[in-house]
C-alpha cells in the first residue's frame, strides 16, 4: 500500500531521515517506534504531505504524494491542529467539507464514546479531550490510511486502553485501512501492532512482523525497543 524508497529529509544541515526504504501493508497496524529525534514525526509529516522529502520516493496506493494521496489519508499530528475559536461540531464540519465519505452517524457515536459535545468550544477543551478529538477526526470517514503520531499524549492511562481497543476494533474502517502509529508507550499498543519498524538516528534499526520478531527474539516489543533503539 505504501512504498517508501530511500527516503531522506535534511533540516538545516541535520539529517532527520537518512534514506529509509520500507513497505506498509494495507489492512495492518504498523508501529513506528523510536526515541525522540529518531525521525518518526518527520516520516509521518512526509506521508501526510505537510513536509517535502529531500530525496527518495513515496507512493501510496501507486500514487506519488500529492492531493490524491492526501484525499485518502487521515493525519493525526502530535500537536493540536484545531482552531480554538471553533466549536467541536464546527471543526468537524470544516473537515467533512474536504473529505469524501464522512460518516456523521459514526461521528456522533465517536463523540459520545469519547464524551465530547459538539457544542463545546475547542479552546475550552483539556489536552486529553483535544487528543480524543484528534482520534475522532481520523476515524469518522472512510479513508485508506490513518497516520497517528503520538496520538494519546494527554489521555489518562485507563482511557487510553479503552480508546485503543475501540479505534482498532469497532471504529476501524474496513479490512483495507492501514494504520500507522508512533508512540513511546510501546507496551500499551503492543497487542494491536501487526508490523513494527524501529528507527534510530533517521535509519531503520530493525523491522518486521511483530509476531515473528517476538518469536525469534523471545522478547516483547518493549524489550526489543529497549535493546535495539535505546
Amino acid at each position, binding site marked *: 500500500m505504501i512504498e517508501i524508497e530511500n527516503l531522506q529529509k535534511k533540516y538545516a544541515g541535520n539529517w532527520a531521515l537518512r534514506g529509509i526504504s520500507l513497505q506498509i501493508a494495507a489492512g495492518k497496524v504498523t508501529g513506528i517506534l523510536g526515541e525522540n529525534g529518531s525521525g518518526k514525526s518527520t516520516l509521518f509529516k512526509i506521508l501526510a504531505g505537510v513536509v517535502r522529502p529531500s530525496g527518495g520516493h513515496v507512493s501510496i496506493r501507486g500514487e506519488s504524494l500529492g492531493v490524491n494521496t492526501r484525499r485518502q489519508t487521515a493525519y493525526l499530528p502530535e500537536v493540536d491542529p484545531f*482552531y480554538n475559536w471553533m466549536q467541536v461540531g464546527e471543526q468537524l464540519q470544516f473537515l467533512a467539507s474536504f473529505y469524501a465519505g464522512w460518516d456523521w452517524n459514526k461521528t456522533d457515536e465517536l463523540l459520545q464514546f469519547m464524551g465530547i459535545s459538539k457544542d463545546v468550544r475547542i479552546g475550552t477543551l483539556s489536552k486529553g479531550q483535544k487528543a480524543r478529538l484528534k482520534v475522532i477526526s481520523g476515524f469518522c470517514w472512510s479513508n485508506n490510511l490513518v497516520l497517528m503520531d503520538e496520538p494519546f499524549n494527554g489521555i489518562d492511562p485507563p482511557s487510553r486502553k479503552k480508546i485503543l481497543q475501540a479505534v482498532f476494533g469497532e471504529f476501524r474502517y474496513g479490512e483495507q485501512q492501514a494504520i500507522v502509529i508512533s508512540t513511546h508507550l510501546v507496551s500499551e499498543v503492543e497487542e494491536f501492532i501487526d508490523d513494527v519498524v524501529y528507527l534510530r538516528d533517521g535509519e531503520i534499526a530493525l523491522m518486521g512482523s511483530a509476531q515473528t520478531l517476538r518469536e525469534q527474539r523471545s522478547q516483547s516489543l518493549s524489550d526489543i525497543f529497549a535493546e535495539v533503539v535505546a
Partner: protein
Amino acid sequence: MRPFAVLYLKEFKDNLNTVALLWVATFAIGLYAISQQAEAGIWVSILAASPYMGVLILPFLLAQSFASEIKAQTNYQLLALPIARWQVGLSKVAVVVTAGSGIWLFTTGAIHWLAIGFDESDMTFLQGSKLQGIDIWVLSGLGYHAFALLLLGIACVMEGAKQYIKKRRRLLGLGVFIACFWVYFKFTGELSIDLGDLGVYSLESEFLHSDEPMQAPIAGLLYTAVMGIGFIAIGLGLYDRFAEVD
C-alpha cells in the same frame, strides 16, 4: 459547499474581530465627519477620506493571517487538506480584500454624503472640484483597489519566498519588498504606453479650477492592478509549491 468557499468562511470568521474593528472604526469616522460638516468645512472631507489610508494595513493583515496559522499550529491541519495549497492562500487574500473593500465602501459612502451636503450648501468640495456622484465611486474604487492589490501581491510574494527560502526571513522579506517595487517601477513607463490605448476616464466636472475636464489615469491604475494580480499569482504559486510545517 465548494472547498474555496469553506476556506473563505473559515478565514473570515478567524479574522472577524479585526475586520469588525476596522469597519466599525471607519463607519464611526465617517459618521463623525458628516456630523461636523457644517462647522469644519473642508477639513471634514480630509477626515472622512482618512480611512483610505487603511489600505496600508492590509498587507500586514495578510502576513498576520499566515503567521497565526504557524503559531497556532493549525497549518498542520490546513496543509494536510486534499486541496491545492494556493486555495488556502487565496482564501486569505480574499478575506483581506473583503476587509479592505468594506473600508472603501464606508469611506466613500461618507464622502459621497458630504459631497451632496456641500453641493446643497454651495460650499466647495475637495478644493474646488465638483467631483461627485458616480465619479467618486469609480475613481476611489479603482485607485483604492489597484493599490490594495499591489500591496497584497507584494505581501504574497514575501510569504511565498519565506516558504521557499527558510533562512533569514526578515532580511528576505525586505529584499522581496524592494525587488517587487523595483519591478513595478521598472515596467511602469513601458507598459503604461501600451495600456494607454485603453484611454482615460473623462469627467464632466472641473478640477482644481481648470477649464479642462479631469482625466483620470485609468491606464496607470489598471497597470497597478495587473501587477498586483501578477504578484499574487507568483506568491501563491510559491506557497503552493513550497509550503510545509516546521
